[in-house]
């Protein structure tokens, strides 16, 4: 038996939380909702069985709380995802762990991070066309094979997750953490890999003007990835909180902008004109070449309004709200999704591939990410932990994580 947080299917709690957080006043109490209305409970569970060959047991060390986890706990995640999960499950997909079993090329006791996507390889299936191309995030088999449905570890009833004392993972999901990379940096490998993936999803010409909406974990790591892997010009970041603005600058933001003045500031920085409709937010005729939406909330509406005609909006945060698509139509924008990570797509000229996780593990140890994980909670204080994570921006925190070494 092991101690774990278990998410159970509860339509009543889901709808109640969704009802509360979807209102303007209720959205201010997201942290209270996350801590009190979430269908989550701390419980003793049997340790998960190894599903088959190539699987190993893991003892998580640190496991982050992601924006998508919070969306799930506060009823803001889309019902679209319900067939892609198998309840009850143990959440947690940002995991640094120690292996408890030997694998052919990975001795037990190895410190690893988990690529959570449960694609064909993990499911023991012949590779689907997407997986065969190295595009595991587009796998069509996330509900098939010998495992219960689950788009990722942390949403699958068979694998356990990082919010439990033990879990299982397929060898193909594991990436060895380099020596010298501390756990609190390693736990950022997964969100950093996602940010790198988002940046790789679009062509970013040298000198392009980029706007990043949101400066939580996803937004900040997107800035880092943009500066590391592209030669874009200005990176203008819409950041709500003071500490986010400071960190955004440290990571290479050209300008940081408060949300209330985003349209005016981006117009001044990129040109064009500002238009004020009779209802709804102001928008630009002109604007950024590429905008990354990293809030998982109302940022998409802002992104569509700040991007120039023919430009691109990359959806990095998991969407949770509806949006007026008129700018998409009128400005002939490209809307690009960026979900999870992959192993690099088609092999490069030299035959090699550099996957998002490879890059992330290369970068995470040398990037200025100290202090990003500045709130660690034991599982027993999970209500405080998710409440803190839901209010992280206001509380000056970037990433909240469960410390599985503690009781």
């Amino acid at each position, binding site marked *: 038996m092991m101690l774990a947080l278990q998410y159970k299917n509860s339509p009543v709690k889901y709808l109640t939380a969704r009802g509360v957080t979807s209102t303007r006043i209720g959205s201010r109490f997201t942290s209270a909702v996350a801590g009190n209305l979430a269908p989550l409970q701390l419980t003793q569970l049997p340790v998960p069985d190894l599903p088959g060959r190539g699987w190993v047991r893991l003892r998580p060390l640190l496991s982050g709380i992601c924006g998508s986890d919070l969306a799930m706990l506060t009823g803001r995640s889309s019902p679209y995802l319900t067939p892609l999960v198998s309840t009850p499950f143990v959440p947690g997909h940002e995991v640094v762990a120690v292996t408890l079993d030997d694998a052919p090329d990975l001795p037990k006791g190895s410190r690893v991070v988990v690529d959570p996507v449960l694609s064909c390889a993990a499911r023991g299936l012949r590779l689907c066309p997407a997986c065969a191309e190295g595009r595991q995030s587009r796998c069509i088999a996330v509900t098939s094979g010998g495992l219960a449905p689950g788009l990722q570890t942390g949403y699958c009833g068979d694998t356990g997750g990082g919010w439990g004392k033990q879990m299982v993972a397929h060898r193909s999901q594991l990436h060895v953490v380099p020596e010298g990379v501390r756990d609190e940096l390693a736990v950022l490998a997964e969100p950093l890999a996602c940010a790198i993936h988002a940046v790789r999803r679009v062509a970013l010409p040298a000198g392009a003007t980029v706007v990043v909406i949101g400066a939580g974990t996803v937004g900040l790591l997107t800035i880092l990835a943009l500066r590391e892997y592209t030669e874009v010009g200005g990176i203008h970041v819409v950041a709500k909180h003071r500490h986010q603005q400071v960190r955004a600058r440290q990571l290479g933001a050209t300008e940081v902008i408060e949300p209330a003045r985003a349209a*005016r*500031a981006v*117009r*001044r920085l990129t*040109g064009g*004109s*500002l238009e004020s409709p009779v209802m709804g937010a102001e928008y630009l005729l*002109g604007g950024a070449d590429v905008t990354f939406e990293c809030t998982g909330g109302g940022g998409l509406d802002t992104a569509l309004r700040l991007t120039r005609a023919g430009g691109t909006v990359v959806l990095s945060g998991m969407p949770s709200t509806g949006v007026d698509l008129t700018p998409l139509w009128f400005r002939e924008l490209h809307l690009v999704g960026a979900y999870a990570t992959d192993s690099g797509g088609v092999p490069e000229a030299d035959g090699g591939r550099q996957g998002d996780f490879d890059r992330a593990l290369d970068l995470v140890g040398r990037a200025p990410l100290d202090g990003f994980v500045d709130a660690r909670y034991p599982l027993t204080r999970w209500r405080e932990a998710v409440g803190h994570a839901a209010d992280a921006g206001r509380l000056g925190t970037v990433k909240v994580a469960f410390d599985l070494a503690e009781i």
Partner: protein
Amino acid sequence: MSRPGFVLEVDERTPSLLVHQGEGFRLEKFPLGTRVIYPPDSLPGIRDLDAAIRHALLNPHGTPPLPELLRPDMRLTIVFDDISLPLPQMRPPDIRGRIIEHVLELAAAAGVDDVELLAANALHRRMTPAELKRAVGDRVFRAFFPKHLRNHDAEDPDGMTHLGLTRHGEDVEINKRAAESDLLVYVNITLTAMSGGPKSVAVGLGSYKSLKHHHNVHTLRHSTSFNDPPNSAMHHSYHRMAKVVEDHVKVFTIETTLNGDNFPEATKFLQKREWEWNLRDQASLLAFKKANEMTPLKLRREIWQRNDAPFGVTGIHAGDPKEVHPLTLANVHRQQLTEIDGQADIGVWGLPFLCPYNVNSIMNPILVMSLGLGYFFNLYRNKPIVRQGGVAIFYHPMQNDFHQIHHPSYIDFFEEVLTQTTDQQAIESKFEKQFAEDPWYTHLYRNSYAYHGVHPLYMWYWGAHAMEHLGDVIFVGADRKAAARMGFRSASTLADALEMAKDTVGGSPSITYQHTPPATLADVR
């Protein structure tokens, strides 16, 4: 016979004094010994204005009479001061319209067909058709608008003419129609000593390329004050430019001056000296104050903006600008100048609801700053009323409120620039070009009713001399956040402000309160 200006020394018998504060006022008990500068009583206005206008046009200074300058085949352009003058707006009929009618009558008599009227709005917002009609009068408006009565457009790529450089290398670029006219008749209202004269054509019809030579931090720091032209670097530049203009265009100027009648009959008590308020004045004042305070801000703003001033005209002089302007300045001084001995540790000013750039608009925080540290601080000759390193105390609510149409670049300047720095030179070097050349601001200046993109920066420079001179600036009654954004402190009361000023000027400072409006020009000896 009007009484001259007067300096009151506050003693035990001095009543509470009126201090303007945006769309309202306070009755303030000043510390004993405070000196209060009052302007001369309002001078009597000219009774027969039409006769005075005719006389001026037929007996000009330094030029032949206007009829002798007019001929049938000529190109005549009549230019007039824009919405920024006078303040408050003049009760119709506006003196500009009356003069223009006379000029047009003479032009018609001479058979001049090619006549155009231009508002000299420089980089200010365009005047609306209603505002133009109010300035020139109904008859002229109907006859000339829109084809032959229009606003100057400093950003019209085909509408400007570069006349050359001054001996200091300053570009002189003015409106093409004006530059190519056989005669340019300028109809002016000189409200303060900074206006009129060499400024009228070179600035009023100028472009950013031209204005940037004098509307900059260096020049404004060396304009001490800009209401004292001989000591104003800005006016030295105007004179150099006026010389270039004069070499290319014949200018016949008509300058007017106004008396101090700022308030209509119902609120006439606002310009009386407080100890002269009778019982009726006191009752009216208290009732007005109470009603004013109970009125919602938006409505209050509208009511104050509708306050047409029953100005009397104190002088009309026409002819060569160089000969006319000294006569105009003498009239301004006659109405506004008050001598005072020595500077004080603290200067106090009550800032009213209006400045040149919020007529029919909103006085945003940057305009409050420019009114206080620019216009009012510079209402002096010889020396500022406050000593070097002293403290300025201004009264204004300084709401964080902007007119979305008139002041779009002001909003960005307040939100984007002042959050980064308030340093005038840093702003000038880093942001001026961006704001001046931003195509959107240019579009709004040309086609909407927006001030030019660079205008908020000019307003910020307007306080350059004061900010260099003063040790501290405190705004009484101001929105704390708005004041802090601009680097100023705010206080709830005068007592609090004086307490705060102790850090800079000690515990027993000398205080001078410059009582205005009506405008008072302090001649500090």
